[in-house]
């Protein structure tokens, strides 16, 4: 069964470059970012003691200020960042819809890039073959798909990467901010496609600063503040908790 489970997860970013410790810890702790640990190896504690259990049907919205750890949490769930403490267990196929332009090759044609991106996402050759006509149609790029994508405008490139990245249904979908792409006509079409992908995935985790988006897509909410999960529950309650934190943070 599809699930996402994190137990007491800590994520540290070590600072190996020569940062001057002299200046650290002198001023008041900022309300953005994680905690800076100056004892021993200089590190930024990006996530601390995160426990989380998601079951099918959960669509979790991550709330928090800049540097609170939303993206780090997404990358931790995705398996990109192994934590220094705790356990992670994800059952089901994960697909992070972050950096959807990654892997595209300017010298290759649109059609070739559908395969390139599909393979990066772990699709089999049969999957890619089967999905290609539908992707091609969705992009509306027609003959351009036979040309190297370096001839594309950035909007056309986005169409291609968006259509390909959203063509395969994952069990666990991770999204870092809404993917707004293309012109008005395409934007609407893309939104519909992305919503379908989200609502057909087992578990959805979504980092965004847009409450409007959270209200439409998330049914649960987690508030992350300086790497700690201070609230987990109903999305509307999460908004309230976040408001309270922001109120106390005000100078």
């Amino acid at each position, binding site marked *: 069964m599809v699930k996402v489970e994190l137990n007491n997860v800590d994520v540290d970013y070590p600072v190996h470059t020569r940062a001057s410790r002299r200046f650290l810890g002198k001023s008041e702790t900022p309300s953005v970012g994680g905690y800076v640990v100056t004892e021993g190896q200089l590190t930024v504690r990006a996530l601390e003691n995160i426990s989380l259990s998601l079951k099918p049907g959960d669509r979790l919205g991550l709330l928090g200020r800049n540097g609170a750890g939303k993206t780090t949490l997404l990358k931790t769930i*995705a398996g990109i960042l192994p934590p220094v403490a705790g356990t992670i267990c994800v059952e089901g196929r994960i697909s992070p819809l972050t950096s959807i332009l*990654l892997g595209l090759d300017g010298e290759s044609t649109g059609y070739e890039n559908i395969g390139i991106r599909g393979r990066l996402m772990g699709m089999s050759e049969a*999957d890619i073959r089967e999905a290609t006509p539908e992707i091609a149609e969705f992009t509306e790029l027609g003959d351009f798909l036979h040309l190297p994508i370096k001839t594309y405008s950035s909007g056309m490139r986005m169409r291609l990467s968006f259509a390909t990245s959203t063509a395969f249904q994952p069990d666990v979908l991770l999204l870092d901010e809404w993917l707004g792409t293309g012109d008005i006509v395409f934007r609407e079409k893309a939104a519909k496609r992305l919503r379908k992908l989200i609502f057909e995935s087992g578990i959805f985790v979504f980092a965004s600063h847009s409450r409007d988006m959270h209200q439409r897509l998330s049914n649960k909410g987690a508030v992350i503040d300086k790497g700690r999960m201070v609230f987990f529950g109903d999305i509307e309650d999460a908004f309230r908790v976040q408001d309270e934190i922001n109120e106390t943070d005000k100078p």
Partner: protein
Amino acid sequence: MKGTSETNLPQRYFYDASRSNLSHALKDLAEGLGRFRLLSGMAVRNFRNQYKGAILGPFWLTITTAMTAAGLGVLYGQLFGLPLSEHLTYVTTAIIVWTMISAFITGGCDVFVGNSHIFKEFPLPLSLFAYRLVLSQILIVFFRLIVLAVLLVIFPISFTQAAWLALPGFLLLLWIGFWGALGLGVLNARYRDFGQLVAASLTFIFFVTPIFWLPGRLGPYSFVVDFNPFYHMIEVVRGPLLGHDNITMNFIVTGSIAAGVPFVSLFLFGRWSNRLPYWC
């Protein structure tokens, strides 16, 4: 839209930070190989794009090799008073093998640092980049071997049965290259001085290894080259091909390296592969 049926993706991700990273690293090595279509595509595109717009394309590799080998072969053949027909082949073979070894060393140092923009954004087995390096080197060596092939047509030599041993010799080098890259990649990710040190050493190694000179020229000191592992690694290909004596020793040394390097690299990668996204 395609369902979740048959894919190459693992259906499960489990990570326990309190347990040793080794099993995680071993799984990474298996999964990396499982993504062969992805990594071969990356290798081929990378290779192709490097020569885009050049009319001669990858044949520039052939030309570069030919020029270096001709220069060194003719010059040192004269200096040492050796027949051109023999010395050219001798130098060319070594140049081809040495450029591959040195490319494995520099590419190995860069295997994680140079690809971090990919694996820090998308979950991929990290070993994939080491496999890709091996494939790239195979592609490159093919174009370099053309020089040797042409040379053997101009100055034919009579191959012995032992010449076939050059093939396993070459495979041994690829094996060492893969594991070496994995280990060097981890070291250089943590301490970038490592890549600098290695780059600085390569020219030195090139001159002290019998690539364009004969070990016999050292007279009573010719035993010194036996302590140079790069000499043995070159000889496992050049020795059998050109019918040198005593290739047993070369194969024993290179074989030992091939047996030992995986342990060292497995230790490094097994212990610290989970830190690579943070170090790069």
